[in-house]
């Protein structure tokens, strides 16, 4: 079943009088349970595509079907609701709230969820998520007391708290050393295989892309290459 379908998505930025086309007709289908890497040089439009996929931005033209719903024309508030329910985000710089405990960071998206959880239920669910990412003994630590890898794992727990079908990761290992990068990537793989979560990550690091079972290479606003990498099974090599 196809979770995400893009049909000739275009995005043009208006810079004063000049229209700058960034995406020039992207068509793409991502099935549930895929682990996709989106690569390309800077300026290739991968971040713009990511923003559109993540419902943070609207395409200028084209159709975007997410989980059987055409969403390219939704209003700002409707998209916010959609992000809350169906999408998770992991950022390069973690974006954790400073001076706020890990468990509270993880529970934060629940504040905006439609379902009304009590304070206790929210904490229980956040704790459960943190245990799942292996931070059972770090529940009340503040971000400043956590290592980079741990911080990113808190961010992953936060992204998954509303149990979304899709997880977006924007350069998830960009701020991590190679050892912790590996840990985070393994976690992605586990979430992908065990929980069937569709993961789409933007990266320009071929080693990171090697963990994906599908690599989409972009250049100058179009998809250059969409294939299963040769090293898909032996990413650690």
């Amino acid at each position: 079943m196809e979770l995400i379908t893009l049909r000739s998505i275009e995005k043009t930025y208006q810079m004063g009088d000049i229209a700058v086309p960034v995406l020039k007709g992207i068509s793409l289908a991502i099935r549930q349970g895929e682990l996709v890497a989106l690569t390309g040089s800077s300026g290739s439009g991968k971040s713009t595509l990511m923003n559109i996929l993540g419902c943070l931005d609207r395409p200028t033209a084209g159709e975007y079907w997410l989980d059987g719903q055409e969403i390219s024309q939704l209003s700002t508030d409707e998209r916010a609701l959609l992000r809350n329910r169906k999408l998770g985000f992991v950022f390069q710089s973690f974006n954790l709230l400073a001076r706020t405990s890990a468990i509270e960071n993880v529970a934060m998206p629940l504040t905006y969820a439609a379902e009304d959880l009590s304070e206790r239920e929210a904490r229980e669910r956040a704790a459960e998520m943190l245990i799942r990412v292996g931070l059972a003994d770090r529940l009340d630590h503040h971000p400043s007391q956590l290592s980079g890898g741990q911080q990113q794992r808190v961010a992953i727990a936060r992204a998954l708290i509303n149990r979304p079908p899709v997880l977006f990761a924007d350069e998830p290992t960009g701020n991590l050393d190679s050892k912790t990068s590996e840990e985070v990537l393994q976690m992605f793989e586990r979430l992908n295989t065990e929980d069937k979560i569709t993961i789409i990550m933007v990266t320009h690091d071929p080693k990171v892309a090697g963990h994906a079972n599908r690599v989409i290479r972009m250049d100058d606003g179009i998809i250059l290459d969409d294939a299963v990498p040769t090293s898909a099974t032996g990413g650690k090599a």
Partner: protein
Amino acid sequence: MRVYATARTAFRALRRNPMRAMLTTLGIVIGVGAVIAMMEIGAGSSTALKKTIASMGANVLVIRPGTASSGGVSFGAGSTTTLTPEDSQAILRECPAISNATPMVRARVQVVYGNRNWVPNAIYGATPAYLDVQDWTILAQGEPFSDRDVLNGNRVCLVGQTIVRELFEGESPVGKEIRIKNIAFRVIGVLTPKGANMMGFDQDDVILAPWTTIKYRVTGASASTSNQSASSTSSDSVNTLSNLYPTAQRSLYPERSAVQQANTPMPIRFANIDQIMAAAINSGEIPMAIEQVAAVLRERHRLRAGEPDDFNIRDMAELTRTLSTTTKLMTNLLLAVAMISLVVGGVGIMNIMLVSVTERTREIGLRMAVGARGKDILRQFLVEAVVLCLTGGAMGIVLGHGGSLLVQLLLKWPVETSLTAIAAAVLVSAGVGIIFGFYPAWKASRLDPIEALRYE
């Protein structure tokens, strides 16, 4: 859950930078504190002021007889004789808005003590209630005359400070005897100094005696403001100090026989008095008091519906007006000061909230990315501002109340705790939070999540 969670988020956000939150609220703390302190001290001063002005006679009503006119010539207020001592008693008895009343007769005659003489501004005949009406109950020396003195027409009097100075050269007059138009009076008390009234009339240049004594032994007629002693001391009358009615006028007409008397009775009506002085319960009750007094007097004087009043009621309109304008001025002044300090505090809040929004751009972007709508962000920052202001307001109330208590303790100023001020302070500080927190919150809610997430 949602409101509670928002409030909790706000508290947490503020706790992340407690020093800045403290400094931000300082404006509101000082503003609200100043308002509370000013309101409490102001209310106390206002009450004290009211009391002072009331002691100047703001509550006093003067009831005088109406006007007589003949052939188009009016003789001015008080030229008829329509008021009786019984009117005064009836006013006191039947008007709930009147706290006290006294009949009064006036004289202006020569007073002699030893080899000195003096014509006081006024010699008043009244009842002991006069002292209460004039808020003059505390005497410098001696004691006031009693109702029994009034009934018996006893020749006792109280003298003002000017009399003490002019007749007694400062020595204590209590127990001394003075002669008022050749009638011997014993001085039994000295009034406290009152100074001039608003017309510049020396209120200490006065002698106070039972009205019966003044009326029947001294004047025998309605008062005029001229010196009566010269005209009525005729050379052919026998000068005796104990003459009961020394000034009784010689009959103009020959003595009438009993038959004549029965056939054409002389219209001798009653013991008339010059005026009645009454005190309203408080200055706010004056209009009510005037109405009640008018009703009582019209009934007693048997005036029909269409007939004009045969009396005048005057209040101290000028004093009352002064009183109300002073109070209003005071309140407005305090309000202006309060508004300025609160606006200053609010601007401080707005500044810090703007800084906070800029500083937390990434947090806002993140919250939007995980599903916060614009109105969620707006609410969060608005609640934060209101929490800041309310916290500041609470601290301000404590500070202001403590300050005013301190003022009361150290400076002995009158202070009144005002619940309205406290309630207003809470409302106003919440209002300031909403008004000045709105712009930063609105700005935050309008951020683009992509831009915000990229913000360094």
